[in-house]
């Protein structure tokens, strides 16, 4: 009996036992009352004690409550939002921009439209008269500018006067010499 236990123990410490031999070893050590095997018996008892550690019964109901009701709803909602948020945002931007575009179009047409063609003609005539008035004013200004050209001629005439003065001085010198 002990020799079998010793052999199994040796194999166990060398990590050469299979699962069945390990079960056998545990059973033999549990029965063994030999003081020299106390350490090994305590080791196997420790394994047995560890294997008996379990969660309480309330755990199952906690988990099932967590997965069956609110969690699943929250998860499905958030994944739904994540999936469609970008599409919804794009649609919203397009809708807002198209509404603004249509509104701008409407405001242009209402500003330029008169109730009758006579009114429109009268307005156009008024505007054209105003433009021609401004153009006449412009013409006058250009004419005034052209007088500047004649002023330059006058200046050149003054220049000629100075040359005449020098020739007069020469004549004076001739008189002095004579």
């Amino acid at each position, binding site marked *: 009996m002990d020799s079998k236990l010793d052999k199994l123990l040796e194999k*166990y*410490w*060398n*990590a050469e036992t299979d*699962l069945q031999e*390990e*079960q056998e070893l545990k059973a033999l050590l549990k029965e063994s009352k030999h003081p020299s095997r*106390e*350490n*090994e018996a*305590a*080791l196997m*008892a*420790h*394994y047995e*004690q*560890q*294997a008996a*550690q*379990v*969660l309480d019964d309330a*755990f*199952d109901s*906690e*988990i*099932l409550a*967590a*997965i*069956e009701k609110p*969690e699943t709803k929250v*998860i499905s909602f958030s994944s739904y939002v994540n999936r469609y948020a970008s599409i919804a945002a794009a649609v919203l931007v397009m809708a807002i921009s198209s509404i603004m575009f249509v509104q701008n179009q409407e405001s242009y047409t209402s500003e330029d439209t008169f109730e009758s063609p006579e009114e429109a003609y009268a307005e156009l005539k008024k505007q054209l008269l105003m433009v021609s008035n401004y153009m006449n004013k412009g013409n006058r200004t250009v004419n005034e500018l052209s007088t500047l050209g004649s002023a330059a001629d006058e200046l050149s005439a003054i220049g000629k006067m100075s040359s005449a003065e020098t020739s007069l001085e020469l004549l004076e010198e001739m008189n002095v010499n004579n």
Partner: protein
Amino acid sequence: MDVTGFKEEVLPLKNKLFRFALTFVKDEELAKDVVQEVLIKVWEKRAEMVFVQNLEAWCMQITRNKALDKLRSKHVKRTDQFEVQLDTRKERDTPYAVTERSQLMNRIQGLIDALPQRQREVMQLRDIEGYSYKEIAENLDIDINLVKTNLFRARRKIKESLIKVEAYGLQAG
């Protein structure tokens, strides 16, 4: 997978996952939190389950990752663990409260806790859960030879430590 399928296939793994989480976090409440998070994650990812070949190994891997995350994020819990250790030491030192066997078992727990993490995981799955080498390799997503090497090293260390305990008594370091 519907709720019935979850009850039949996933929920029965809870205790194995709890004990596995316990080897990392060493606190029952924390280990319970880990298992809760794991099972809810599995439920959320139930659509992906058709691609999963080994449900149990998949759950074990999620548990391992969650438990390690928990350990990394809960710096405060280290203080709690320290307090727990002090409490058990008090218990051990009270001669009338515990027997010699349970003192020895506490000592063994300390020896296992002192093992490197991978060796501790392999030892837990083999000696406490009774998995085959192949199953352990799948659960930990490592090579089967690595499983054997880690188990051999873990058992050798425990054996050597038990010889020391025998030679110097329970109070020996």
